[in-house]
């Protein structure tokens, strides 16, 4: 099987940010909790590879620790979507056409009717802003996405002969869903998880930009952008660098997702 070039570029970009986040646990070029006002708003170069922010913190170190927040929030949010959405989708597919299916799908439509940011604002308003609530808000929006993908994939499998054979062998709907349907929609779920992971990165950045995500002093890419906004004329690098980090990470994940879809689903290759 030919590996698409886009997939390789995307995987390399994603791996780079994952590595940055990992390394930040044991080492960062500078301490992000130390404020050095004399060193503030330094341009890239000059002792600091990517410059410093308005409080004299090293931007590269902030990016590394911020990657941890972004990846953590997006990962847990995708996990919530998978853990709740997939069983719902499988259950709906097992009862396709019945009232359970109808209720699950209408419930999905309802969640879709709430714009995700509005949902996050509501959750933050109710429970207070924190990284945990950002995960919850993004995760809730992921549930119907995974439920739909799982249901659509499962429904097409239920008509196939090997499922019929399993039913004849006396297996119940729950066992068939777990043992035969779930492994066969794995590809679909992996591709969707990559996409939702990238959506999660952007959403986390948007939420922390508005102060609804991780709270200070924990660095996050979104808040780095919010901090830079009033100083964008004086220190444009403060806005450009975290923004580029978000773009590269999301681009990497999207390229990886597209590549995975092309590799795992031969039908998509023609139109890609």
């Amino acid at each position, binding site marked *: 099987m030919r590996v698409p070039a886009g997939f390789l570029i995307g995987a390399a970009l994603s791996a780079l940010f994952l590595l940055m986040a990992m390394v930040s646990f044991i080492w960062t070029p500078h301490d992000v909790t130390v404020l050095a006002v004399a060193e503030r708003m330094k341009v890239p170069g000059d002792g600091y590879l990517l410059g410093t922010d308005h409080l004299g913190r090293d931007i590269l170190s902030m990016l590394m620790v911020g990657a941890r927040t972004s990846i953590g929030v997006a990962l847990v949010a995708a996990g919530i979507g998978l853990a709740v959405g997939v069983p719902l989708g499988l259950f709906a597919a097992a009862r396709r056409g019945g009232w359970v299916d109808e209720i699950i799908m*209408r419930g999905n439509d309802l969640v879709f009717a709430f714009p995700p940011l509005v949902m996050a604002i509501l959750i933050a308003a109710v429970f207070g802003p924190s990284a945990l609530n950002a995960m919850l808000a993004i995760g809730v929006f992921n549930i119907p996405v995974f439920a739909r993908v799982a249901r659509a994939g499962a429904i097409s499998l239920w008509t196939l002969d090997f499922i019929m054979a399993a039913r004849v062998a006396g297996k119940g709907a729950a066992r068939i869903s777990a043992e035969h349907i779930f492994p066969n929609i794995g590809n679909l779920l992996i591709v969707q998880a990559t996409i939702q992971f990238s959506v999660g990165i952007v959403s986390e950045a948007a939420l922390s930009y508005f102060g609804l995500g991780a709270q200070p002093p924990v660095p996050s890419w979104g808040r780095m952008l919010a901090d830079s906004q009033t100083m964008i004329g004086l220190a*444009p690098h403060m806005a450009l660098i975290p923004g580029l980090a978000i773009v590269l990470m999301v681009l990497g994940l999207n390229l990886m997702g597209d590549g995975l879809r092309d590799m795992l689903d031969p039908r998509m290759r023609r139109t890609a």
Partner: protein
Amino acid sequence: MLCYLLSRLISLVLSLAVASLVIFAMLEIIPGDPAAVMLGLNAEPEAVAALRTELGLDLPLAQRYAAWVGGMLQGDFGTSYTYRVPVADLISARLGVSLPLTLYAIFLSTALAIPLGVWAASRHGRPADLAIMGVTQLGIAVPNFWFAMILVLIFAIRLGWFASGGFPGWDAGLFAGLKALTLPALALALLQASILARVMRSSLLETLHRDYIRTARAKGLSRSRAILHHAFRNALIPVMTILGMQVSVLIAGAIVVENVFFLPGLGRLIFQAVTQRDLIVVEAVVMLLVFAVVVVNFLVDLAYAVVDPRLRRRA
């Protein structure tokens, strides 16, 4: 068709009813008493109690829910706790910014995306196609609030062509208003335009492989005429669906972009209302946004049924 319309209408009303319950319930569990927040820390308990009665906060839950929904159906959204004016007036003033902004963004993204998508498809596999695909891939990855900041940096701070934020009001003239909304609308349109251009391209490419296009070409039609007169209209159907689905994304995006540009729209209103615990405003704005999304999706479904008769029977 009538049967389909009726079933979609019932589902629309049900969705709105459940959504209103969810919104009401969520704001019910918010800690903090709006009356206490309004009067400040040093308020007398009697004054807080009197205000609670005035605002109707001491009535039973079910009664308050019924009053809220009943009021909205008559266009009465209640009175804002902090602004002390009817919520309906607040909303209609803010809609004067948010609605033109959203429409402007839809206009910009469609006007950019459709020609780009058609161009990319007609140059399939050539440099122009690859360049458009690359730029749109990037456009999908750029967060709208960051793009908004970059636009401010370039066009407001460096070039000085636009103001970096704020809105002069429609009284200042149509041109001044549109000018103030141009950067925000561009920031909002980038993502939509990127997605739409890609959908337009792949949809047109698929249509171009159909037999009727080959027939048209065999009759002696030029490639560009075949694209414009035969393939284009059919290829537009998936583009319309995506456009409908994007409405909820655009509404959320408008909330973000309005805050970056300090535009007095619904997005800023909802943020201020949340921080000031002005729950009645939050409830009304969220309900309105959900209403907009549900109604647009209903209209898209209807448009579909008009275009594709097979869908009518499935309901």
